[in-house]
């Protein structure tokens, strides 16, 4: 297996009453080793549930109904979807860890930072002594540039700022040297200057630790700054996938184009902020044609009838649009 993580034909469904509703389908992703991979899309496109599915963290009644998620661990290759609860827990936090959007609420408010860092450590290393854990915790805090790590260890989450908490979350996520870090909108809740710091920190840590990062975001600026490869999600599908330069400079899909136009920039021409009309159709309300058809400015007749297939536009650049290929999804 040449990739660290290979997701094949992932399909996630939920129950709405007695009805099964599709939230995600036909998702194929390859995450290379030591690569940072971006997943971008509007809210409700299936970005976060993809990440949650990798760690088996889908909340009831969501479930993976089809597909495989193969992962190459330090000494073994496995299908994460077929692991039992115990084996899955051994992967969580140790092989693959995750950081979340809201640093302010991601730590338990009633425990100190120290206790929560120890918890992450001691679960995977029960043999570790308290002093060794403390040393490791301090080292991690130091690496994520926390000033006064000693004092921070003794603090409760409400005494720290969002930026500090997100650094601590990153420290906890990386405390067991995982090989893959799933970052679910890690900077969305932070202000812009802190955002830049956190992204730089994640980049540095990736270089130091040979950790692959999956960066889930709706901010193309974040993607541009951190990622090498990008997949654009729309309504539970990948609509475009390419390396980061191609996404920005050889944009193929009208949806990606719309996202790029909607990016705000300082010093740009004075114009009204571009928005893509309409909203993402929620799961269960997808048309049989292209799911973006209703909002697309270049929609053709056939777009409403048939679903375009994800085809290669140029080597390594895939797009799901009839503008680039006649091929339809069977």
């Amino acid at each position: 297996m040449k990739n660290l993580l290979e997701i094949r034909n992932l399909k996630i469904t939920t129950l709405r009453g007695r009805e099964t509703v599709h939230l995600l389908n036909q998702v194929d992703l390859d995450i290379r080793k030591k690569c940072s991979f971006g997943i971008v899309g509007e809210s409700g496109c299936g970005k976060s549930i993809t990440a949650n599915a990798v760690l088996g963290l889908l909340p009831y009644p969501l479930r993976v109904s089809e597909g495989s998620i193969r992962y190459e661990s330090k000494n073994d290759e496995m299908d994460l979807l077929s692991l039992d609860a115990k084996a899955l827990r051994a992967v969580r936090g140790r092989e693959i860890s995750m950081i979340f959007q809201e640093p302010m609420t991601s730590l338990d408010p009633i425990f100190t930072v120290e206790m929560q860092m120890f918890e992450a450590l001691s679960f995977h290393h029960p043999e570790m002594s308290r002093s060794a854990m403390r040393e490791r915790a301090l080292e991690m805090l130091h690496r994520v540039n926390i000033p006064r790590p000693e004092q921070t260890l003794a603090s409760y989450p409400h005494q720290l700022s969002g930026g500090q908490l997100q650094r601590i979350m990153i420290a906890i996520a990386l405390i067991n040297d995982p090989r893959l870090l799933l970052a679910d909108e890690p900077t969305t809740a932070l202000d812009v200057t802190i955002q830049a710091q956190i992204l730089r920190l994640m980049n540095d840590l990736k270089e130091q630790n040979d950790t692959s990062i999956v960066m889930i975001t709706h901010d193309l600026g974040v993607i541009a700054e951190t990622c090498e490869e990008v997949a654009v999600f729309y309504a539970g599908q990948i609509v475009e996938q390419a390396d980061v330069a191609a996404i920005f400079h050889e944009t193929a899909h009208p949806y990606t184009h719309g996202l790029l136009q909607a990016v705000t920039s300082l010093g740009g021409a004075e114009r009204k902020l571009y928005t893509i009309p309409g909203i993402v159709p929620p799961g269960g309300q997808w048309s049989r044609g292209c799911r973006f058809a209703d909002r697309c400015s270049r929609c053709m007749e056939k777009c409403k009838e048939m679903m375009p297939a994800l085809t290669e536009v140029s080597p390594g650049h895939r797009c799901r649009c009839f503008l680039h290929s006649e091929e339809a999804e069977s």
Partner: protein
Amino acid sequence: MKQKNRPVRNRALPGNESILRQLWNDPMGRAGMIGVALIILLAVFAPWIAPYDVAKMNAKAKLTAPNASFWFGTDNFGRDVFSRIVYGARVSLIVGIVAVGIAAGFGYLLGMIAGFFEGRVETVIMMVMDVIFAFPSILLALFIVAALGTSIVNTMIAIGIVNIPVFCRTVRASVKTVKSTDYIANARSIGLKKMSILFRHVTPNVMAPFTVQATLALSGAILTEASMSFLGLGIQPPDPSWGSMLSDARKFMERAPWLVIFPALFIIITILSFNILGDALRDVLDPKLKL
């Protein structure tokens, strides 16, 4: 970057000193605490406080109005009302605490299971709770006592069962809230076991509403006991209970109003104190919480 040096204070954990101090600083909280403390003192030190034997009848002093030797007067058997009220506090408190203990214990367990595991288990548990909840509590408690037989233990069990659903619901609702928080998602993402998440992270975080509910349920339980005893299916003679004292006093209400006034007064003080304390506790533990 903000570096705040606020004093470390743990708001969610009950039973620590700062919460008691916060309660004391709130006028309502203070009133509640004093009232509750008074009742507890009466109950604990009953043998030393009560001037007479509760069961001892005094044929020479039937229906005596309150005076220097019988502070609250005597009843139709010549028993000292004050002594009976003091011992009645003991009965009320024990019944209340044990009943709430039963209700809280089972309610917590069922609520945890329902909230944490969801699916069919939850549906079944909540359906049973809804059925219990549908009965007027006093009626259901009477049913249970009628089936089990009248005794102080059965009274506690009956009141306990009747109160399970409120705890179950409170706990389930808070477990669901806590469960969907990011820190639980985070705890799962670092590989913690379900059970350790349940006990280490969920339990302490649902303690605040749970504690408030327990305080409020205590007053409810005491009131239910009084009502049951009033109806004759609660505490049996010769054990003194405020409810049965009221019941016995009905016939002599016009001739000896003190027989009604004092037990009623103590019921009111007790219920009021616990309710005020519960409300104040809620405000201290979580100002956003409204039960």
